[in-house]
């Protein structure tokens, strides 16, 4: 029964999965294609970056030598901003549509009248989202490797897998928070609004903390501080605290979401 519900979720949302994945792969291809022409100007860029205020480059996750390697470049240009943005849009839209969206449209009524527990409905939606997240993350991050080879660029293969793990956990934490809100609400726009607002505030906090010395503590309140794409992609480093934080928050939010969904009134 649960497999039927998981398959239904995956099948129903395949168009958005393909759209987000193709968009992500397209951006990766664009950045990889641009890199050979920028690589030659690495020294010029390094000088330019050094002339900027210290916190400025840091605020946007750009290292002075970011053009020295494909990993440094693509981590700064794609995986520090565009990729998290795509992942956030995708996971929040998945979560919003999964419960709040179905309540809003009334389609959840027939499902709730079937001999299945609310808990299995909830977990089926979560498992389906995890499958989609796996496809999205693997496709949009690991696709850099064949694209780089296409342009005869050197790649550090293992680091892309490191980033994939960080990316998966980041996406899961975002989804966990959004599905928790979705379980609570009957209006998907509220899920989008609240999650979007919170993540935007976190992004601003991350930027402000890098630009203002006495507000540097703000970075700890931002999920973007813990999603360190350059560390994973350039140095193959995973921050244990980040991993722990993503895992714990994902589990806590998913469990709270499940409790809310199984206990709440659903007026359809």
């Amino acid at each position: 029964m649960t497999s039927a519900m998981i398959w239904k979720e995956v099948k129903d949302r395949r168009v958005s999965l393909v759209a987000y994945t193709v968009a992500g792969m397209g951006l990766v291809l664009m950045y990889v294609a641009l890199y050979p022409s920028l690589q030659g100007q690495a020294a010029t860029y390094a000088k330019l970056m050094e002339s900027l205020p210290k916190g400025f480059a840091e605020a946007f996750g750009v290292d002075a030598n970011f053009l020295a390697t494909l990993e440094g470049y693509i981590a700064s240009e794609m995986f520090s901003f565009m990729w998290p943005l795509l992942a956030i849009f995708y996971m929040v839209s998945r979560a919003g549509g999964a419960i709040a969206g179905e309540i809003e449209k009334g389609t959840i009524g027939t499902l709730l009248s079937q001999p299945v527990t609310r808990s299995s409905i909830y977990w089926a939606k979560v498992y389906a989202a995890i499958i989609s997240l796996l496809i999205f993350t693997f496709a949009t991050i690991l696709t850099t490797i064949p694209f780089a080879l296409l342009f005869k660029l050197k790649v550090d293969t293992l680091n892309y897998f490191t980033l994939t793990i960080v990316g998966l956990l980041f996406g899961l934490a975002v989804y966990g928070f959004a599905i928790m809100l979705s379980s609570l609400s009957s209006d998907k726009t509220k899920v989008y609004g609240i999650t979007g607002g919170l993540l935007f505030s976190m992004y601003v906090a991350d930027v402000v903390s890098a630009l203002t010395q006495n507000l540097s503590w703000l970075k700890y309140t931002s999920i973007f501080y813990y999603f360190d794409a350059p560390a994973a992609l350039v140095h193959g480093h995973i921050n244990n605290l980040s991993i722990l934080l993503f895992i714990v928050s994902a589990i806590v939010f998913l469990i709270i979401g499940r409790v809310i969904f199984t206990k709440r009134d659903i007026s359809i």
Partner: protein
Amino acid sequence: MAQAIIKLTNVTKLYGRHRGIDGVNLSVQANEIFGFLGPNGAGKTTTIRCIMDFIRPSQGSVKVFGKDMHTNSVQAKAKIGFLPADSMLYPKWTGQDHSDYYGNLRSNANISELANRLDLDLNVQVRHLSTGNKQKLALALAMLGKPDLLIMDEPTKGLDPLLQQEIYNILHEYKRGGGTVFVSSHNLPEVEKICDRVGVIKDGTIVASETMQSIRAKSIHIVTVSTTNKIALDDFKSPKTEIIHYSEKHIILKVHGNINPTVQAASRYKLKDLEVTHANLEDIFLEYYR
């Protein structure tokens, strides 16, 4: 007495300070078609949502097939077919997709037989179906896997008379096959046609639960008196009499119970015409609504 298929005991649902339903006691016996009536906002849908465990009562218990709907709803739902008031199906799915999906959750049942009978094309996407065909599909899905109990919230809303009649036939056949039906409706002739027993809810409280036979036997008369002289209104006033229309020489009354005092009052006048008729079923139901 046999175990009730649906049993609500003192069910109250509060929405903040507002009471959705208040102390509802209701039981539906096996193999009966139970009509659930009430004006808009009376608490019909709230009651159905409580029965289906979509919302949880603030107080009281809901049992279906002897199972508590909060703790054991899965076992009970395996025997329940549900038709919501506004069936919201997946617009991009075909009828066959719905049948496959929900059939998978109910031991691989399918709706092809009923779809054929209803002349419903299962290969068309729901968004391209007419209101009537959507309702046919929703009804077929409610009957998926041959449930023992059908819970239906206004099943014929927006349907043409032919289709309404087909649904009544299906429900009668379903009953003959041993099924039980709990149906909410605004359509009083429909209730009269299909129900064995009715419950009436008003302001969140059950105000009547009776067989159709006993409702029909209710003694309510409409008395029309036309005279050649002026009628004194006080002659006809009594706690069991309701004045529907009054003019100088003409009065129409609704009389509950014994009509003799009213007829005697009329006999004191020089009558031009006197008509006494039984109130129709709609008038009787409306009595409960007031």
